């Protein structure tokens, strides 16, 4: 199982501009698998990313926009991307600010399918 998760994360981290990726349990924000650069506090990031996703989930459903399929946080020096993955997981990607979001998103979707 771990190999399957790792292979999915590797697929995403091969995209140019991706600094790291992780699979997070959406409900409690715990890291399921990660492939992050050294020094990043994966647990803290996972918890915050899951919490952000949860807030947007509620806001999006209330505003009749439906379940969020893709979340993109843009910062001055990088981006955080997230998409729901099977079994109540969230695939979170940390990337450069100028990443090709369309490509990253495509690979994230494929990675999500691969861990199903």
């Amino acid at each position, binding site marked *: 199982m771990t190999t399957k998760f790792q292979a999915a994360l590797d697929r995403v981290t091969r995209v140019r501009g991706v600094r790291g990726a992780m699979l997070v349990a959406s409900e409690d924000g715990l890291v399921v698998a990660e492939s992050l650069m050294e020094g*990043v*506090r994966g647990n*803290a*990031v996972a918890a*915050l*990313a899951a*919490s*952000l996703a949860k*807030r*947007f989930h*509620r*806001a*999006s*459903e*209330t*505003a*009749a*926009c*439906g*379940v*969020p*399929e*893709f*979340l*993109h*946080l*843009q*910062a*001055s*020096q*990088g*981006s*955080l991307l997230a998409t729901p993955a099977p079994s109540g997981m969230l695939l979170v990607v*940390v990337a450069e*600010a100028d990443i090709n979001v369309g490509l990253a998103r495509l690979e994230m979707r494929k990675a999500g399918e691969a861990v199903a």
Partner: protein
Amino acid sequence: MNDDIRALSAEVARDPASLAFVPLSEALRVRGQLDAATKVALAGMEHHPNLADGHDLYARILADAGDVEGAADEWSIALALDPRHAGAHKGLGFANFRQGDLDAALEHLELALAADPTDQTIVQALQTVRQIAQQAAAHPAEVPERPAVFAGLEGADHGLLLVDPQGRVLAGGLRAQSGHDVAEEVAAYLAGVSQEAERTARLLELGEWRWIMAEGERGHLHLSAPSTSALLLLARDKSVPSGRLAILAARAAEVARRWLEAQTL
């Protein structure tokens, strides 16, 4: 005092732990003798604290006395003891209706009917609440008066919302596709997002966060912070491409920034 009440009183006097306290108290309630009904109910519940019927009965006495909140508490206890208690669901349907929560009222009445399909009073109550809910949906409540900060911008009053970091609406408006005003609710969900986004960006050494976009099944949300004291949310249906959403958001953020500055002058 009719014969039934006399017989039940005698039964309870002979055996204070008798379950006859339920019909006795109910009979007194129906006659409007609420003090006597309360006394009998509370005395009986001392012997049967986990009897759902007892809590349902006491709730009805409280409701008759005008204490709907207290009644709702008792019906909630009854449901905790017996999740399929028709009387408690019916009671909570009534309490929620009185409190203006039509969705919750409908839910409880439907559960009450499922538990007791023969009760015509539930059928009637359900019909009444459904009619009122349909009327409310056809004529949504007036939206509170909010500053027309985004006048002239696309979606000014239904797809552009300015909120403070505590989740309170500052300006603009947000409506679901049904026309229902969801501004306050969505604003509440966004409380704290700014700090979380800031913390996430800091932990990842991403610099200052600029915006967050959520692409949903039916629509997109775009959130930015035109100032440290406000968040701006744009909501659009899925036909609006995310790139265009970003342009609209930048335009609205500029308008919001000017308005916020004017407020602090």
